[in-house]
């Protein structure tokens, strides 16, 4: 068993237990930060190993695959684990200034670390049922975080979030049962080999659709996204940032994994549905955002519309499109988490997230305004920021196969994104505050803890944007692995297969 694979999982678990025991003392928050920092180092180590040695696989308890539980890190898993750790570290620091003492005593830091463990596990596992278990770890932690010390709003949003996510979980479980009945295995690598032998390929497509719906709910695609805008604007800002950055992306990751590796038997059917889903998701999400006036609600709807781009990359299934999907995934997590963190600072400075009720941030807190402009423009796809390259690759992929209409939708949605970002800019930053408040960053408590992660994530956006070449090359290698999973299969099952 390789320590590189298990450390990114063990560290958050240990941190969670320690933080839980220390929840009544001020040490708990430092445990969370140190744990996230160590997790970041562990995932950096994993990344460097995977970059050098290719796919890394480890059998838990030394049961040989496909009988035991396998942990696998190919490039996609490794980059997702790394980006999870980066976001986790940033939010752990931000939590110093955002999470109240009451929430800490109720066990915020333990739940947060548990969430990171669940997300990391979902990215690393090579076994379908184990993926279900990690989904549950992630879900129960997110349930706790969502309603921690909550009032009416949090409970109300929580009910919808819990209800719809539980249904998707059960659907996922049913799909696992049926797929096991047809193939007799749950290991991804083994499944990839065995699905070809299934007699009734039509039934396999039915099961594929069950997975599509189950993961679709998690990823918040059209028409299954309703839980997201109902819940994401209610919890603490640190919590909603980590949710916005990571949770839906686990669904996208699961879709990419299953629909490139296992369910590639009837691409013309399944991926055509994905294509329509992607287009509707982009359009509905961005239109929903246009109708909102709450900082976080606008951003929540934009998560949905951006998920559409990633699904679009998967649906086209060309090498370039998958490059775009991977690039988009990484770019989006950084940018989206950052925007939610900024919403938190804006709320602390002005007292509200309703953009029509606040204002004046550009004049009194120009530094925050610049920090907002970077991820906001990146989200909308302005060159030279990371979002431009992500959108460029996806649109190029659609043009390459003459899907003019889809390319038009992708571009139009980008334009609409600018509209929403401009609305936040004009209302929250440019116009004077309606109550005449001139909120200054100086007055902010725990200023460093709040601004440091925002600045760090913004710098990452700029770096990816100014120097996209290595990141695109990385995404190309990742996409090649996704389209030809033979290295993955060999790493898991050995050469015998």
């Amino acid at each position, binding site marked *: 068993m390789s320590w590189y694979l298990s450390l990114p999982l063990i560290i958050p678990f240990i941190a969670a237990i320690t933080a839980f025991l220390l929840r009544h003392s001020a040490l708990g928050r430092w445990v969370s930060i140190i744990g996230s920092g160590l997790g970041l180092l562990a995932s950096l180590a994993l990344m460097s190993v995977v970059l050098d040695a290719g796919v890394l696989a480890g059998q838990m308890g030394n049961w040989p695959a496909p009988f035991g539980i396998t942990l696998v890190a190919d490039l996609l898993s490794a980059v997702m684990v790394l980006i999870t750790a980066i976001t986790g570290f940033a939010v752990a620091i931000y939590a110093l200034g955002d999470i109240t003492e009451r929430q800490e005593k109720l066990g915020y830091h333990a739940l947060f670390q548990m969430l990171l463990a669940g997300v990391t596990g979902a990215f690393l596992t090579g076994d379908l*049922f184990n993926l279900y278990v990690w989904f*549950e770890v992630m879900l129960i932690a997110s349930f706790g975080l969502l309603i921690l010390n909550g*009032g009416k*709003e949090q409970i109300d949003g929580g009910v919808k979030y819990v209800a719809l996510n539980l249904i998707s979980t*059960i659907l996922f*479980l049913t799909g696992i*049962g*049926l797929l*096991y*009945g047809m193939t007799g295995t749950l290991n991804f690598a083994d499944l990839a080999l065995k699905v070809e032998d299934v007699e009734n390929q039509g039934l396999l497509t039915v099961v594929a659709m069950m997975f599509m719906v189950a993961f679709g709910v998690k990823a918040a695609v059209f028409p299954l996204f309703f839980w997201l805008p109902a819940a994401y604007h209610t919890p603490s800002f640190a919590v909603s940032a980590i949710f916005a950055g990571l949770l839906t992306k686990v669904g996208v990751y699961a879709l990419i994994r299953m629909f490139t590796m296992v369910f590639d038997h009837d691409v013309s059917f399944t991926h055509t549905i994905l294509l329509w889903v992607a287009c509707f998701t982009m359009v509905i999400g961005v239109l929903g955002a246009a109708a909102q006036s709450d900082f976080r609600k606008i951003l929540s709807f934009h998560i949905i519309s951006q998920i559409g781009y990633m699904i679009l990359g998967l649906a086209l299934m060309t090498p370039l499109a998958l490059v775009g999907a991977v690039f988009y995934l990484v770019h989006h997590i950084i940018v989206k988490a950052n925007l939610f963190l900024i919403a938190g600072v804006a709320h602390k400075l002005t007292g509200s997230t309703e953009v029509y009720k606040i204002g004046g941030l550009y004049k009194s807190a120009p530094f925050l305004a610049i920090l907002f402009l970077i991820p906001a423009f990146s989200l909308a796809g302005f060159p030279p920021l990371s979002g431009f390259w992500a959108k460029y690759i996806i649109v190029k992929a659609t043009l390459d196969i003459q899907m003019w209409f889809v390319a038009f939708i992708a571009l139009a949605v980008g334009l609409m994104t600018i509209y929403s970002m401009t609305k936040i800019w004009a209302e929250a930053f440019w116009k004077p505050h309606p109550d005449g408040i001139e909120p200054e960053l100086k007055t902010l408590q725990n200023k460093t803890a709040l601004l440091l992660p925002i600045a760090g994530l913004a710098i990452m956006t700029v770096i990816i944007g100014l120097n996209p070449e290595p990141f695109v090359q990385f995404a190309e290698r990742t996409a090649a692995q996704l389209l030809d999973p033979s290295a993955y299969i060999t790493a898991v099952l050995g050469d015998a297969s």
Partner: protein
Amino acid sequence: MEQLLSLLIGVLVAASVYLMLARNLLRFLFGLILLSNAANLTIFVAGRLTPGAPSIVPDGVDAPIDVVANALPQALVLTAIVIGFGLFAFALILAFRAYQSLGTLNTDEMRVAEPKEQ
């Protein structure tokens, strides 16, 4: 046996959908637990049923001699039951807290976190 259990799963799913379409949150949760039991049974049946043959390996050999029941789906179901139980307990408490703080279990009236209806 498989056919009988499949029919039972169908009935469970039908009942759970009926319950989940109700506006009462508690009925929704009851529907949810029926659905999760249907899912567990699906895993069980999909692993093929071999009645009366426990998967026990006799002393002195490495593998079972005769045909035995598939133990893996049973292990999966067991895991799923435990996880489902935990989640359901959470959901029940959440429903109770929702009733306490919102004063209703009618899902149509649970709109605190959403925009006012026009």
